[in-house]
């Protein structure tokens, strides 16, 4: 192998961009979160009052052209891509690199993306033209009569790497460019990977984050048949209540969350404020298909332990855990893992309690929120858990001011991947 990797290059966060069900900026998201508000509300795409899925965490009022410079491209961006590019734009502005950087080849992009379904009306017209008299899909007919109804760049609108491609284009970022597709763990893994790229010296600055929207009939149907979605349609105000005995599944959501990661000296050299340091990162896999975690949470504990060891920190140095906790029964396994790593009494919170589960974006959103919490000295409460009674971890039920030193962030996929990341002052 070639050169040894320097571990002297430290990676800091110099910008945060968030579009969440709580707001169209990092400030709005954090203010509403710490004010104890929820972004979960009746869903916009289904109207029937007796429908099995009636609430979600939607990014309301989002207009892509308010955020994206390259407006002509917006029409070939699926909503996931728009959210990623818009969050990148907010992060870049926050970090003071809105006009790009001096050395574009040292500026990279690492995004986490989900499986992006085609907009139904778009593909539906073409598929309908390919149906036989008996309603069956006739591919020869589709090739002849359906295909010409789609626009030429249709495929590009839905490729996961287009989150990266458009973000890179928007800021002339010509450095390392990677797209992580690890289901719900994508965002956190993408940010961890971006930190590694900077650490090993292949870039000085990276846009790193994720976006996904599950507010789509096909995406919701998949979650529904997997038995993941909360059925508490009559109680949307209560949210998914992670770790609570009364929880009833996850609440689907959408979000875009992007950080600007930067080598510490590079940030200092241009006078950019470091909001936090990426101190450690680790991942593992428990290989439990369709579950978030293997029973007993061993992979989650391994990922947390790896991140702590990478950071050179002890469990006691971490002030709180931003948990994956999504409201599914596997929250219990994460709780076991947290207790195994940290012992009892470690404060635990999760943004998902207030906004729902933005899937590929969720780990990036938890991390982006944790960066704000650390830099502002304010740990947000876990929404809706006041009346939970006993929980297997110590949930933060009221926001706390504090001079925090480090937070752990967890993110797990359906499929067994477990990722953990530690940020420090």
């Amino acid at each position, binding site marked *: 192998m070639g050169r040894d990797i320097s571990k002297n290059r430290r990676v800091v966060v110099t910008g945060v961009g968030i579009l969440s069900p709580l707001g169209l900026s990092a400030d709005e998201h954090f203010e509403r979160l710490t004010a104890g508000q929820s972004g979960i509300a009746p869903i916009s795409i289904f109207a029937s009052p007796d429908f099995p899925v009636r609430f979600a965490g939607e990014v309301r009022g989002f207009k892509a052209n308010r955020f994206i410079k390259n407006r002509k491209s917006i029409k070939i961006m699926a909503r996931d891509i728009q959210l990623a590019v818009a969050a990148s734009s907010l992060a870049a502005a926050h970090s003071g690199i809105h006009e790009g950087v001096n050395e574009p080849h040292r500026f990279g992009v690492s995004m986490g993306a989900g499986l992006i379904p085609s907009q139904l009306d778009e593909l539906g017209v073409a598929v309908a033209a390919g149906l036989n008299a008996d309603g069956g899909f006739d591919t020869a007919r589709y090739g002849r009569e359906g295909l010409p109804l789609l626009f030429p760049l249709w495929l590009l609108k839905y490729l996961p790497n287009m989150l990266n491609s458009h973000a890179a284009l928007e800021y002339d970022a010509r450095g390392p460019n990677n797209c992580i597709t690890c289901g719900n763990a994508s965002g956190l893994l993408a940010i961890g990977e971006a930190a590694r790229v900077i650490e090993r010296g292949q870039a000085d600055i990276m846009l790193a984050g994720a976006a996904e929207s599950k507010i789509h009939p096909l995406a919701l149907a998949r979650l529904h048949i*997997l038995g993941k979605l909360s059925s508490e349609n009559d109680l949307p105000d209560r949210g998914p209540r992670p770790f609570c005995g009364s929880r009833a599944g996850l609440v689907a959501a959408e979000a875009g969350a992007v950080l600007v990661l930067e080598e510490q000296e590079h940030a200092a050299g241009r006078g950019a404020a470091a909001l936090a340091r990426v101190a450690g990162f680790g991942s593992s896999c428990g290989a439990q298909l369709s579950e978030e975690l293997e029973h007993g949470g061993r992979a989650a504990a391994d990922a947390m332990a790896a991140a702590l060891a990478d950071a050179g920190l002890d469990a006691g140095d971490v002030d709180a855990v931003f948990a994956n906790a999504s409201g599914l029964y596997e929250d219990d396994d994460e709780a076991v893992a947290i207790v195994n790593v940290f012992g009892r009494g470690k404060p635990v919170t999760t943004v998902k309690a207030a906004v729902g589960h933005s899937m590929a974006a969720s780990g990036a959103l938890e991390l982006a929120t944790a960066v704000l919490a650390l830099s502002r000295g304010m740990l947000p409460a876990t929404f809706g858990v006041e009346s939970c009674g006993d929980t297997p971890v110590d949930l933060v039920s009221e926001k706390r001011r504090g001079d925090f030193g480090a937070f752990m962030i967890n993110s797990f996929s359906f499929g067994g991947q477990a990722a953990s990341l530690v940020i420090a002052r």
Partner: protein
Amino acid sequence: MGAVTPMASNLPDTWAGIIEGRSAVDYTTLFDASTFPTTFSGQVRDDDLIESYADDPLLGHAGRNVKFGVRAAEEAWEHSGLDGAVDEAGRFGLYLGAGEGPPDWVTSGKIFGAAWTGSAIDPEKFFLEAVRLLDREYELFQESNILAGLLAGRFGARGPNLSCLTACAASSQALGEAAMIIRRGDADIMFTGGAHSMLHPFGLGGFNLLTALSQRNDDPRHASRPFDRDRDGFVLSEGAAMLVLESLDHALARGAKIHGEVLGYGTTGDAYRVTDMHPEGRSATAAMLMALEDAGLEPSQIDYINTHGTSTAVNDRVETIAIKDVFKEHAWKVPISSIKSSLGHLIASAGAMEAMACLLAIRDGIIPPTINYENPDSELDLDYVPNTARRARLDCCMSNSFGFGGQNVVLILGRPPV
């Protein structure tokens, strides 16, 4: 190493076919594609492979991509001699460049049909029909991370676990990043590679809409003709390619047979257009230079370049320009070829397959040819190793992968360290 390709369902026969200069491209039979602008592909025709998983309680529900991936991984696993020899599961990880699953288009058609109002899709009807008709497990397998989880369970890998999808560069990127994880000391063994099938009506149709595919429907075997004057697009193929990477110390300690070394990795983004490469390939050039720097090599030390060489008008022209830019006068001396001329384009799996071709070329002392090279293109004047494999001693090889959307990945592979 292991592979499932349109040429064969294992690596040795795939490699033999490439060296013999055979084409694995033929008319598509997986579905009726006779009315599509392109009627042929690099389809994996091994129906026994698909059938062999039919009764598997889990894989029976998986898409073709996952079955290809599992078969290629089993071959690579056996080849590595690691079965029963993994000492520390936590230091054994996976980094794949795996594609999404092919959609269940038969069922999708029914769902769309039921939800079609005559002018639009009724979202509620669509949801209810989808819930009624979709297969739970098949849908789960659509997610591209499932293969990495599945293989982790199968081989007992509890270390770092990731999957990336940077289009046509995905499995090259995965290989490079997996090597970086080992180099950093975070794992001793990493499974890497890719598996992908976009050979379904929406994938084939999507690439046809982009006018990216060859439409040489009267002569499929000669359709993939990288660097030839009459090239008219790439050939969509499916398959899987898997490798086991190991730290040198770990491999030596267990007396493993070593097939080569990962010397360098470069990754860049075009930041130009999502539809086109930069006309001078500025970021492809940068990726090659980054990989050379990472390997500590001069351009003149590269003995062979396995190109991205897709057979599209733009890629092959720009890649030629970029190689000249990096290699200067050595560009005309270094043999370069594209195995996509034989296999077509395996999309996410292509890069790992091509990295293995470099390792096999070094092992066998033979350069795979660019087949179907008949008419020189006046602007494309490098040594493309036309039509016939060539004997040569090779020490260091470069493998280029350029993703649709501008992700460029370059790997440098070398002879096993003595």
